[in-house]
């Protein structure tokens, strides 16, 4: 098998056909941005956003409040331990303080995503600025930024946020995103610094410099477009880390308390022994929704990897 070993003798017809099929497939996805992983992942994330946005109009978001619904109802088609059947008025069931699960999901999912986006946007901005400064200015500036990012990448954000919350108290969603962003700038800084350093050596930036372009122009017009797939990838990776940390904090009972988030729903479920009471919908639905969200983010990231690194495409 020429394909399997990579070093075959004369190939058979079947191999030849396989090669042609592969060639055809390559053609179909000529634009690297149209790869199936990226599209599926983006589809999942957009789907969750639409669920949150349209849900507010199609379903009553007031049902997230305590006591707005009957207690402990299972989803439609199931029975709870007391033998009560699910009700179409609460298709995903309710939890033990009378909140409607569907409404909690509709309100909670966008909140969770929002925290990730805020942390990632701010983190990326800081990261891009520091990374470019370190790579371009070099010298002492570079040393300080490099050591600082080495240090900050080691400190787990969860621990600092636990200390912050237990001593300062209650925070909102926006504040949560801002706090998280303080730990999210290191990896884009490292990435951009490395890219800037390698690009400075490469021909076209030197050409641009010779032709009299200003440093600023080179940074933003010549180099940034080449970094786009990496930046997108970094953005998604950071958003994922931020959401993981936020969910972790929420499941400890910290994080935003007044607005529903998916992590907070899970915290209340664990806290109320939903596992033992077999109220699987209480923790299971937010878990499934979060899992879907993470799979979507992962697919987007893998798809962006293929854009940035063409070698991965054929696998």
């Amino acid at each position: 098998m020429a394909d399997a070993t990579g070093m075959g003798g004369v190939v058979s017809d079947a191999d030849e056909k396989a090669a042609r099929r592969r060639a055809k497939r390559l053609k179909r996805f000529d634009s690297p941005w149209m790869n199936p992983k990226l599209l599926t992942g983006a589809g999942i994330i957009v789907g969750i956003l639409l669920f949150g946005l349209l849900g507010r109009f199609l379903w009553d978001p007031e049902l997230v409040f305590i006591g707005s619904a009957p207690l402990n109802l299972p989803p439609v088609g199931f029975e709870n331990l007391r033998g009560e059947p699910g009700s179409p008025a609460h298709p995903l069931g309710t939890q033990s303080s009378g909140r409607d699960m569907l409404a909690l999901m509709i309100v909670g999912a966008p909140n969770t995503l929002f925290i990730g986006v805020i942390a990632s946007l701010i983190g990326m901005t800081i990261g891009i600025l520091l990374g470019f400064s370190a790579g371009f200015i070099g010298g002492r500036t570079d040393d300080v930024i490099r050591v600082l990012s080495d240090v900050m990448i080691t400190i787990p954000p969860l621990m600092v946020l636990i200390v912050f919350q237990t001593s300062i108290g209650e925070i909102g969603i926006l504040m949560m995103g801002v706090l998280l962003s303080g730990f999210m700038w290191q990896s884009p800084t490292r990435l951009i610094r490395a890219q800037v350093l390698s690009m400075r050596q490469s021909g076209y930036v030197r050409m641009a410099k010779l032709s009299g372009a200003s440093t600023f122009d080179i940074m933003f017009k010549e180099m940034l477009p080449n970094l786009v797939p990496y930046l997108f990838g970094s953005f998604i990776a950071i958003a994922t880390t931020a959401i993981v940390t936020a969910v972790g904090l929420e499941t400890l009972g910290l994080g935003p308390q007044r607005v529903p988030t998916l992590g907070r729903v899970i915290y209340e479920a664990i806290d109320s022994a939903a596992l033992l009471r077999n109220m699987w919908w209480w923790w299971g639905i937010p878990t499934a929704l979060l899992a879907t969200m993470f799979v979507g983010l992962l697919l987007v990231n893998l798809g962006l990897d293929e854009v940035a690194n063409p070698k991965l495409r054929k696998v």
Partner: protein
Amino acid sequence: MSNRSIAGVPLSYIGNRLFTFFLTVLIAASVIWIIPRLSPVDPAEAMLGRMAAGAGFVENADQILVDLRARFGLDEPLWKQYVVYLKNLMVFDFGVSVANFPTPVSQMLAAALPWTLGLMIFSVLIAFVIGNAAGAFMAWQETPRIWKIAIPAAMVFTSIPPILSGLLLMWLFAAQLEWFPLTGSYGLFETPGLNWEFILSVIRHGTLPALSIVVVTFGFWALGMRGLMTTVQSEDYVQLAKAKGLRPRYILYRYMIRNAILPQVTAFALKVGLLVTGQILVERIFSYNGMGKLIYDAILNQDFAVIQGASYIVILMTAASVLIVDLIYPFIDPRIRHGGGQ
């Protein structure tokens, strides 16, 4: 001077890593110290408030407030408090627990730490090994087709935080199937010690927490390794190794994995913080006797000394892991050990 080395590792490299380690610990310790002082709430009054809430009424409140301030050094100038704090950290003195008064925090941490470290070795390291093996076999051209389908299929959970997989496994294997105990780190009736019942019980209790970390993290390593292997596969030295007629398996280990693993080890150092905190959250849902449960209980009890001490220890643990990886790295990458021979 820059040529001097220990076992071939340049001193400047070791010095650099040690500097980063101490700086990390110092910055983390300072942040943990500064944050509570940003709070508008006076810690002494907060403590008094808790006492009042417990007893309903406190006599001599003003005098107690002064005593508390003196006892915790809060009447000293800030810089002095900071120096005392750092001095205490060096001997792992974090004060006493409020909830378990007057147990020293360090004693509680010492009891929890072995459980967390033990679980970490079994979960984080196993995930790293399995993940890299899976990634290598995914990219290797000679891997049987079955594995090429099975490995990606096993990776659907990748990037989901361990706490979610923990909930699923707990529900399925502990609550529904009852194959494993629901919570705790050993049976209620076991006597801790080196006897078989206790060891078996520890393994049974540790399986689900470890598994919930492994199933979601090995995919991360596998994906990274696959990418690196794809790159290494087209390196000239691998092509030459094939032309040399070396056996495919030997090329896989000695030429491909051996080189592709290097960036993975570096990535491990960058990722270890997230892995440790992920594990701490898993410990909390399984009520495992480690740092996770300690921190969670401390949050419930507003036991700030414990939270501060535990946070410091977790960060120290992370920084130490990074330091260890950094110090091992030169021994697997000769380019650092024999830096610049020419």
